[in-house]
């Protein structure tokens, strides 16, 4: 990519030798500009992974001063044969599959509602965005207080209207749905703003045309609005799905993986292995397994997305990245 080729030759020296030198200079400049950041990122991603690999092939235990031995694939074997690994994997997936579709649904509702406001839309939108700006720790303890069985407001309201409330985070059946509820509360705003952007991008003349053709509001929604929102929903789904593997903070505050192991997802299980029991070998192996799972999972999802909307929105995978800016807060 020669970028400076646009510069008129009359101004620059027209001789090709100097142009070549110019190009070499440009190349070197590119390298100098990119190098610090790339070197930093490269070192900091390779170095820990090297340590991870080292730990995962040895009997590394922080608490016990036994000599570190090479155990080969032993750690991987013990992880894969441990039922707790499989239960935490399924909890992670169940969590994502409960939370993300509901976020899309509620987010769509909110986006449609907000789109109907011409006055005050911006201020309402930014108020709805508050949860996703908050630290997950703050979200976690707000809900911990809100759902407290004794002095929390929600349960006394529920009792007031004659419903006997569940024990939320401390009941084995309700703990996971509680975490899902909290995740929905925090991240629906993200889906909402993505879909709101989608709605704003539909030109008004589309609606006028539909009206002229005699389509009613429901028909317009199903045949025009929804299809136009599909790429936005896909992006929101992919990003939220990938992000739901990161959920840790609200578990730490609300359930600590309990009761029992009923809310122990992969992230929490890894933390527990590493920093609860100091079994660094096993925790390292689990991290490597997650890395592999996620790499392939993400690649598969992105390939799917790319294939799906190849036609108009060839920017879809790019958009996926772009949208990551709002996610992962």
């Amino acid at each position, binding site marked *: 990519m020669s970028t400076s080729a646009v510069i008129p030759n009359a101004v620059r020296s027209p001789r090709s030798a100097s142009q070549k030198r110019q190009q070499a200079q440009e190349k070197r400049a590119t390298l100098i500009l990119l190098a610090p950041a790339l070197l930093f990122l490269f070192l900091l991603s390779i170095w820990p992974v090297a340590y991870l690999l080292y730990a995962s092939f040895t009997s590394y235990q922080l608490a016990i001063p036994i000599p570190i031995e090479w155990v080969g694939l032993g750690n991987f074997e013990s992880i894969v044969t441990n039922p707790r690994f499989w239960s935490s994997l399924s909890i992670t997936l169940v969590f994502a599959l409960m939370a993300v579709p509901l976020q899309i649904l509620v987010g769509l509702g909110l986006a449609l509602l907000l789109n109907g406001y011409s006055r005050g839309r911006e201020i309402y939108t930014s108020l709805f965005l508050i949860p996703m700006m908050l630290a997950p720790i703050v979200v976690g303890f707000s809900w911990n207080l809100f759902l407290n069985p004794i002095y929390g407001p929600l349960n006394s309201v529920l009792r007031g209207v004659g419903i006997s409330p569940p024990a939320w985070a401390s009941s084995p059946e309700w703990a996971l749905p509680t975490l899902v509820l909290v995740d929905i509360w925090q991240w629906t705003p993200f889906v909402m703003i993505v879909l709101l952007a*989608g709605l704003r991008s539909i030109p008004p003349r589309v609606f006028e045309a539909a009206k002229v053709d005699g389509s009613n509001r429901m028909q317009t929604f199903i045949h025009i609005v929804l299809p136009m929102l599909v790429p936005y929903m896909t992006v929101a789904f992919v990003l939220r799905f990938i992000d739901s593997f990161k959920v840790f903070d609200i578990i730490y505050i609300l359930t600590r993986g309990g009761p029992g192991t009923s809310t122990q997802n992969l992230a929490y299980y890894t933390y527990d292995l590493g920093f609860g029991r100091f079994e660094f070998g096993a925790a390292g192996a689990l991290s490597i397994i997650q890395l592999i799972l996620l790499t392939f999972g993400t690649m598969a999802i992105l390939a799917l997305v790319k294939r799906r909307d190849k036609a108009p929105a060839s920017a879809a995978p790019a*958009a996926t990245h772009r949208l990551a800016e709002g996610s992962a807060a």
Partner: protein
Amino acid sequence: MSSVTASRPPVDRVPLSEVLREVLKHVVMVALLLLFLCPLLWLLLTAFKPYAELFNSPPTVLPVNGTLANFTEGWAVGGGKGIGDSLIVASLSTAICLVLGFPAAYALARRFPPHGQLSFTILSLRMMPPIVPVIGFYLLFQELSLFDTYTGLVIIYTFMNLPLVIWLLSEFIRQIPKSYEEAARIDGAPWYRLFWDVLLPLSAPGVLTAGILSMIFAWNEFLFALVLTGENVITLPKALASFFLFQQPNWGQLGAIGIAAVGPLLIISYYMQRSLIRSFSIELGGR
């Protein structure tokens, strides 16, 4: 006058019912928002309740003997240290992110195709859950004696935010017409002048957005802080989480620190929703 009023009612009536509808619409929205933000509002109210009122069952909605003591006490029992440490770590890492990220973003924007392999690789770092590298970082930090230091956490947060900053800035720089740089070059401006006097002012809004996001993410981050620091560096999320070591946390102080910590974000959220909506529509809805 009478002839005017005679012709007016139909014109006047419509606005009246319109006004009513409009008012109703806003009432519905405000009610919905109050319901939605309930958990946070409850925390806000709790921050003003004295200790004796915290554990009332059934709880009292409004503080009976409102107090500001939670704020001063909360500041003293760890909130102040938390806010200070978070400010240090978040602002330093953001500054480094921008210094490292801006030149890289420029090179990426001008020399590489948009959404190419390199940008994808850089951004995919962001997709990784922090739990994956954290054990590696822990061992590395023990080795380099970076455990529980400001330097260590700044490095980590820079690593965490740099991919995003590079991506955002390179997208932003792409929108700036090349003619500005060319004009500057023709005038014989050296490269640092090109950066400082031409590009930086033009990309100021992009730098602001990237900087704010990077600040927020560092400010909110918990897992790395939990694992990679001890008694010396205590960021705000870690300070807040430490309240949960007790059976009955002091919700008043917790609420006070929490509210103080998120207050600035409310203003930012108004600014952000505009730029977020704009960038999402640009990205997905054809330019």
